Every structure is written in C-alpha cells, then in structure tokens.
C-alpha cells in the first residue's frame, strides 16, 4: 500500500444474486484501490461484473448479497445502514449512467433537479441551491446556464443531458465519481466532449474516478490504471501503459488483437477470440477463460488440467497482477 490511503479501497468484494436456480455470483473476490486524482478504468464485456461492482460500491445493489469490504476514505460501507449510505451517496460519492434520460425526471426542470439534490443533502435554502445549480450547469459547459436551468430534460440533446447528469453529480462536491458507460449511448464527436469534460473536472477538483466501459479506446484515453474483468473476476490489473504495452492475461491480449484499429495498416483477417463470454449460471471450476484460451492446448496435459480445473488467483508483480496460470509478462506470447 502506498504511503497515502486510497480514497476508495475494495477488498474481496463478492456480490451474489439469489435466483430460482440458486445464488448467482456476479462478482467474485474483487479487490482494487482508487486514489484521489486518479482514474481507474474497469473494462469488461456483458456479464463480466463491471456494472454490478459499481452498483455495490454505491450501495445500489437491490436484492443482492454483498460480502467483503468497501472502504471510502477509511470508512467501511458494507453493512452500513441505508440512512448512513444515503448521506454518503451524493455528498461524497456520485454516479453517472449510460442513459441520462432515464436518470432524469421528465416533469421537473433540470435546474430544480440539481437544486433538489443539494437541498436534500445539505438542507440549503432554495435560492442558494438554485444558484449552485446554475453554477454547476455553467461548469459543465452548458451555454446560457441560467435560462437552460428552467428547461426540461426533453429539451436537451443526448450530450447536453449527460452534461446535466455530471452537473447533478458535482453539485454536492463529491470526492469519488463513478461513471458507468457514460458515453456509450453518445455519438463519437459528443463522446470526445464528455470525456474531455470528465477529465477537466477531475483535474480541477482532484476527484477519484472509476470509469466503467467496454471500450478499450476510452480506457486508453482516460485511465491511469486499468482493471480487466472476466466472468465476475479480475483478470488483470495494471497501469494503463503496462496493460496495453505488455498485456499479461491471454484474454486482454486476445481482446487487443481482435480489435479493428483505425491506425492499422494490416488488412489480414482479425485474430478473433473463439466462443462467447461465459454464463454466470454455471461457472467453470477452473479459469473462466480456459474454454476460449489458446494457452491450454499449447501446454502439456498437466497444464491443461490446471487451466480447466484450478481457478488461478490474481498474482504476480504488485503493480501488474494477472489471474492466469501462465501469464505472458514481458510481452512474450504465452
């Protein structure tokens, strides 16, 4: 652990949902830290557990059983009563989602909604909250903020709505911002604006940011550190340059190899990963990636039995651990 305590510290987080067919473990033994002023990118595909992780941190995991530890500035959040969690949500940590329209109330003006958020958390007077709402809209780059505060969500474009969400998240001056696929529903030119905005407010306010995305390009642009998730578990964690420069886990390497790239000269067929992401209903006893991984077939029978029968722990260098029995450190293909 570095000399200063990270703002967010997650240890052995496990999230289970009860179903008719028994509990489904959506997140399994996940650990990570996010210091102030840094961005952690969490990358994964559908069912990887990345969104469930963010909901668990926010205490929004309705109906799920959460085990492990989530500490915000040293304070344990797991098991905290709802009332206390409510005070922390918004005030110290805030979240923005993929679809801003479903997070905004259609009957209230955006100014009212942002002001309401502040009034609930700080008991501020109407006029004060209203002024802060207009300031927040100005900070996120909405032109004519005083006039637009009086408009309704449907009068805003998709990109402007996401700015409104960010303004709502920022008005209580949180220290942690969780952004769950914040640009996935937006066009690429608008995505660039929103990513720039998040980076700017992070720098100005020294926010800790968790950026959840399926897009490795977004991660490369905004993250300082990256956590790759697969089948509810951490596959690999590394500083952004290390992850892209020398991916240790065959899944990460496979993803990078399979991406069509704008800066590619090569027109050979893409190196696709066979198969599909795993189902959480029937988790494999060994490595979740083993059925799609090229490595087991390359090794001895004993190697293969290990990949298929023994779940690899997240291990290796502290700065760049990988959950693989045969990690490819140093950029050597496994």
């Amino acid at each position, binding site marked *: 652990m570095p000399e200063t305590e990270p703002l967010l510290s997650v240890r052995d987080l496990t999230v289970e949902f009860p179903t008719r067919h028994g509990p489904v473990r959506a997140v399994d033994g996940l650990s990570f830290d996010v210091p102030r002023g840094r961005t952690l990118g969490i990358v994964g595909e559908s069912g990887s557990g990345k969104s469930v992780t963010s909901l668990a941190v926010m205490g929004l995991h309705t109906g799920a059983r959460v085990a492990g530890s989530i500490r915000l500035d040293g304070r344990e959040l797991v098991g905290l009563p709802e009332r206390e969690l409510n005070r922390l949500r918004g005030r110290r940590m805030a979240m923005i989602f993929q679809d801003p329209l479903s997070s905004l109330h259609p009957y209230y003006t955006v100014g009212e909604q942002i002001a309401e958020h502040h009034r609930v958390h700080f008991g501020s007077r109407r006029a004060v909250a209203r002024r802060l709402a207009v300031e927040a809209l100005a900070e996120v780059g909405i032109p004519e903020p005083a006039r637009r505060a009086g408009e309704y969500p449907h009068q805003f474009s998709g990109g402007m709505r996401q700015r409104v969400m960010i303004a709502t998240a920022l008005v209580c001056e949180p220290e942690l911002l969780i952004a769950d696929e914040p640009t996935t529903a937006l066009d690429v030119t608008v995505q660039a604006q929103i990513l720039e905005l998040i980076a700017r407010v992070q720098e100005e306010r020294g926010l800790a940011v968790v950026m959840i995305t399926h897009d490795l*390009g977004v991660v490369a642009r905004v993250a300082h550190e990256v956590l790759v998730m697969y089948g509810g578990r951490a596959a690999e964690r590394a500083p952004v340059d290390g992850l892209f420069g020398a991916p240790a886990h065959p899944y990460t390497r496979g993803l990078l190899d*399979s991406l069509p790239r704008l800066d590619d000269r090569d027109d050979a067929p893409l190196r*696709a990963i066979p198969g599909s992401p795993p189902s959480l209903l029937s988790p494999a006893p060994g490595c979740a990636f083993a059925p799609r991984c090229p490595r087991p077939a390359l090794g001895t029978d004993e190697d293969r039995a290990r990949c298929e029968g023994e779940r690899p722990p997240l291990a290796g260098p502290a700065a760049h651990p990988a959950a693989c029995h045969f990690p490819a450190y140093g950029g050597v293909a496994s």
Partner: protein
Amino acid sequence: MSSTTPLLSVRDLTMTFPGRGPRAARVRAVDGVSFDIAAGETLGLVGESGCGKSTTGRMIVRLLEPTSGTVTYDGRDISRLPQRALKPLRRELQMVFQDPHSSLNPRRTVARTISDPLLVHGSSAADARRRAAELMDLVGLIPEHLDRHPHEFSGGQAQRIGIARALATGPRLVVADEPVSALDVSVQAQIVNLMERLQAELGLAYLFVAHDLSVVKRVCDRVAVMYLGRIVEIGPKDRVYDDPAHPYTRALLSAVPLPDPAAERARERIVLRGDPPSPAAPPSGCTFHPRCPKAQDVCRTEPPLLRITAAGEAREVACHFPETGPVPGDGAGGPGSVRS
C-alpha cells in the same frame, strides 16, 4: 467501375417523414443521396445517429418507400416497383440487422427461420431443410442445432443465424445495418471475419452501415460519410481515411479513441462544438457550418455540392474549403499535443 454497370446505383434518394403534430415540419431524413456499389464490393456508410444511414439502407431493400430518387439494381429501377413485383428481387437483395435476437422469431426453430425464405421462393420442405443445414455449416454453426430456438444461442451465434437467413436465397447484395455493434467486443471480430470470408466465397456485395469507423475501415473498399441526411464525403477507403477532405470526416476520425495510450496522449484532437442539429430544422447553407471550425460566410448561405477536388481524384467531397493531408497527430503522433 465506370466501364461496367454497377450492381446497385442510387440517385438523389430522398426520404421525408411527416413531423409529429399538425403544424410540425416534415423531417428530411435523407436528402439527395447518390452512390454506386459494384458486384463483390463493400461500401461503408458511416455517420452518427440520425444522419440517415439506416434509412438509406432500408430504402434500398424497400423496407421503406423513398419519397423521391431512384434505386437501380442490375440495370433496373426498383424504387417504384409494386411490392408484388419485388418478390423475385428479394432473393438477390437481403438484409442483416443490428440486434440478432430481436430480429429472430423466438418461437421458431432455426431451421424454420433459415428455410422460410426458401419456402417462400418455392423450394420443397426437404430441400429447404437440407439447404438450411448447409447454411448453418457455412456460417460456422453446428447443423445438428437446427431444431433449437434463438434463446439457446449466444449473441454472436444468433447473428450468424441472421446472416444464414440472409444468405438462404443466394443474394448478390446484402445490406448490413450495424451488424456487429450489439455484440460483445470479443465476438465482433468473429462476425467481421465471417462476413469477409462469405464475401470472398460467394462474391457478395455489401452495403455496410455502421457508426464504428474502425470496423468500417476493416471491411470496406469504399466509404461514404453522412451528415444530416447528406453524403459529405465519398471515395476509396484509403483516400477518405488517410487524407480526409471534409472537416466533419476529420473531426470524426480524430474523435475515435485509439486502444493505445501513448498514441492517445500524442494525438491532437479536433473536438467539435455542440451536437448534430435536428434534421427537422437543418441549418442553412452547408448543414455542418454551425459546428465547423473552418466555416466562413459562404458556408452559411451556399450548400456545397459533392465534387472532386482535383483531376484524377476518386474521392468526392461536399465542402467549400476542403482540406488535405492526414488528420494532425493521428497515428504517428503529431506536434502540439492536446491532452485534456
């Protein structure tokens, strides 16, 4: 291309939708789009949401009736044919949709989904089933799974079924509308490779409609960039990607995040102001002018025509002040990096 007749030729294609409400303006979703596709060729059609790219694709297969303009397939104008007369053409013109699961009937077996187009076109039940099994194999599925239902397949497998259905009647042109954008990243490459292999084996032509510029670069021979219902730039892939002439194309390319942190830091990005305007109230002149970093007076009044910028140039651009050279800082890492 110029010497032979193109397989598909689209001229001045326009689609106007009635606005909502009694006094609402009509929305011109597609406004005078023209392009050709040669046999065996892939044309990529890119643009952001609401630019009219999907509407264009749907007019070509006549899922939508164009307001005006012509669609000439194999030398014959099909844009005004009555639905009955379209039936033989549907063998040749097929479509693949974005969401594989919602475009498959959940209550039908795969065998039925794939063989239905064959039965419609007069095959016997036994022949249709045999052909469905062949198609399963062709698209990389297990023919023994013919009697399963869509929910038993993953997203990538379901998209393979959608492709098999499109190929059942032996089409020459497939309109693929965002065929990989609903799939997991690790599965997208499988479908891209499958579509490329099928093209090589069957000599298919594709109209590949997508918002993902990286995927389109991989699959297409030529590319058309749409903005607010119009094509703003069209030409061979290398010309458009390596030397984009329209300021919108340049901004679009520079906005795509590269999966490479060093390249991202070194890049100079053109960040456009604002959002694309509504097609119900398009700006005057060049519709891109309110967001264009280079706009001048003439751009506010005169709509630019799609034209070549030099003799022998294969790429056309609709801009009064077209640019040249690669997008600054792209790939190689340009000077004056703007890292925000």
